[in-house]
């Protein structure tokens, strides 16, 4: 066998209508809009840059403290601080496009109307590779219940976003793991028209301040992320792709290395996102691309698509 060289591995990835050079993205909220990371590497090297979830209006976010470190992870309660869609479309998105980056824009809303408006405005901007729909937001019209926790409400959001997003711009639903059956929510949003799934958003957690014995975070509870949640994220990807084998899935949760990325691909993801690991290593996303090439080459796998779903015995019977 002639040894496969890392640089010869084909990393190109197709996610519904989105064609990417490689399957590695930033995770929403962990890379702002790419500008700061551009000091450490060229953002055009990434499969895509997923931007911080943008809302219609400017938003101050929650009170500090907004973070607490936890074993192999962290909690955050940012509360979706952001400049609002006008400023985003005027400044952040053009910056990414000028650098030849592939932007996937994450949108978040408090009502179906907000989601629809965001979908129209983002979807009609040339150069947007896809829309990621963050449904882990309280539904203003429904007692503040989080859309992602109810398959019916989640599906309504996706139906509206798909309806108002131009054809050719794929729409991905980002799901919360804090549900009894992620497969049920996944099936509901796919049924409603989503083109794929992003799994997973953070887990709900709490941190107690040892000095005051009160919750540390300004927002009381926060979202748990980082390597600590990797087993939960892998499980969600595996369950969703086992139940819905043809659905494109983007895996996220605790990815730090190319080996981690490979595990998500094997579990069924077609692409991956790097989030909290960036805080430890600002160069993590490009390092993950490099390491993924090496992991694939070392196994003699010439195309990344070949490894997607390997962990599913029913879909990929072991070679004899």
């Amino acid at each position, binding site marked *: 066998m002639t040894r496969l060289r890392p640089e010869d591995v084909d990393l190109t990835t197709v996610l519904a209508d989105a064609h990417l050079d490689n399957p590695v993205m930033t995770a929403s*909220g962990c890379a702002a809009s790419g500008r700061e990371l551009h000091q450490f590497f060229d953002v055009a090297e990434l499969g895509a840059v997923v931007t911080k979830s943008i809302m219609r209006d400017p938003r101050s976010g929650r009170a500090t*403290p*907004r973070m607490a*470190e936890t074993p192999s992870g962290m909690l955050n309660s940012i509360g979706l601080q*952001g400049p609002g869609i006008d400023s985003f479309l005027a400044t952040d998105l053009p910056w990414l496009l000028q650098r030849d980056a592939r932007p996937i824009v994450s949108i978040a809303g*408090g009502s179906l109307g907000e989601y629809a408006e965001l979908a129209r405005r983002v979807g009609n901007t040339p150069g947007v590779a896809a829309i990621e729909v963050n449904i882990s937001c309280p539904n203003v019209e429904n007692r503040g219940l989080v859309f992602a926790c109810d398959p019916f409400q989640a599906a309504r959001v996706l139906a509206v976003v798909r309806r108002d997003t131009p054809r050719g711009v794929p729409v991905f639903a980002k799901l919360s793991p804090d549900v009894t059956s992620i497969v049920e929510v996944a099936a509901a949003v796919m049924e409603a028209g989503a083109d794929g799934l992003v799994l997973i958003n953070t887990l709900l957690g709490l941190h107690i301040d040892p000095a005051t014995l009160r919750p540390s975070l300004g927002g009381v509870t926060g979202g748990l992320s980082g390597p600590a949640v990797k087993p939960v994220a892998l499980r969600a990807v595996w369950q969703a792709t086992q139940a819905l084998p043809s659905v494109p899935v983007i895996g996220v949760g605790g990815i730090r290395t190319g080996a981690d990325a490979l595990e998500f691909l094997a579990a069924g993801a077609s692409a991956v996102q790097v989030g909290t690991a960036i*805080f430890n290593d600002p160069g993590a996303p490009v390092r993950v691309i490099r390491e993924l090439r090496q992991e694939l080459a070392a196994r003699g796998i010439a195309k990344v698509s070949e490894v997607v779903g390997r962990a599913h015995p029913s879909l990929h019977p072991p070679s004899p």
Partner: protein
Amino acid sequence: MTPVSAEATTPRGPLQVEGEVFSIKRVGDYFHLTVVADGIAERARPGSFVALSVGGPISGALLRRAFSIYRVRPAGVYGGTVEIVFAAHGPGTTWMAQLSPHDPVNVVGPLGHPFAQPLEPVSCALVGGGYGSAPLFALAERLRERKCAVHMVLGAATESRLFGTLEAKRAAQSVTVTTVDGSVGIKGLVTDPLPALMTRNGIEVVYSCGPMGMLRAVTEVATAHGAWSQTAVEESMACGIGVCMTCVVPVVGDDNVTRMVRSCVDGPVFAGDRVRWDDIGTVPAGTHGAPRPGRPR
């Protein structure tokens, strides 16, 4: 007199460097750590900081720890070095205190918006609380190069928590020391001797670094004397590079609008009179994008 941002010097922007411990020494209650980390010295400016990873190769602590840069030396015989002064506080810094020469240590820096420096040769007070004095020495040197008069006020709870009192004598025209317990210097807070010192020396800019409460009190004194204040704040930071939005403080902009501003890139140094000290830990009403009454978030 308006302080302006330090001049743009190339090379710019932060680096990530796999460095190596050159030396680590106890200094009172603190540790003085020198790390060989090429490229950082050349980019550092007074008030910028570095972020170190902690816990070693299979660490359960994911986030970097932020430390003001005490001193840098550009590449020479040993490669460029960067020096910090830290307190062993929680698990991360306790781990750092066990480092030995030649141990690897990963550094990201220099980070943050540094101290603004005056264009004219004015009189400056540099006020440091505890290890907060560390970044003031490089600042003092730059100010003296600009022919500014430099007066230092160093305070702490007790003698062992003071850093650099001896070095301050070389760095400054005058040095005033305060301790809460009176173990050395004036018994009290840095703000006790500050008003008289400002009047006596015609101070036009007050620089400060230390606990939030001190920064706020120093700013009050400075403002009451019609002086500019430059404060280096310390807010919990997850990324240190501006991407996560965890490190925000409410700051009033030129347009008089309060914004939740990232202290890692827009700070850690802010004009003291722009920080809404009383409202830290809240989103003050009227902040840009703050929740409007009656609308659930």
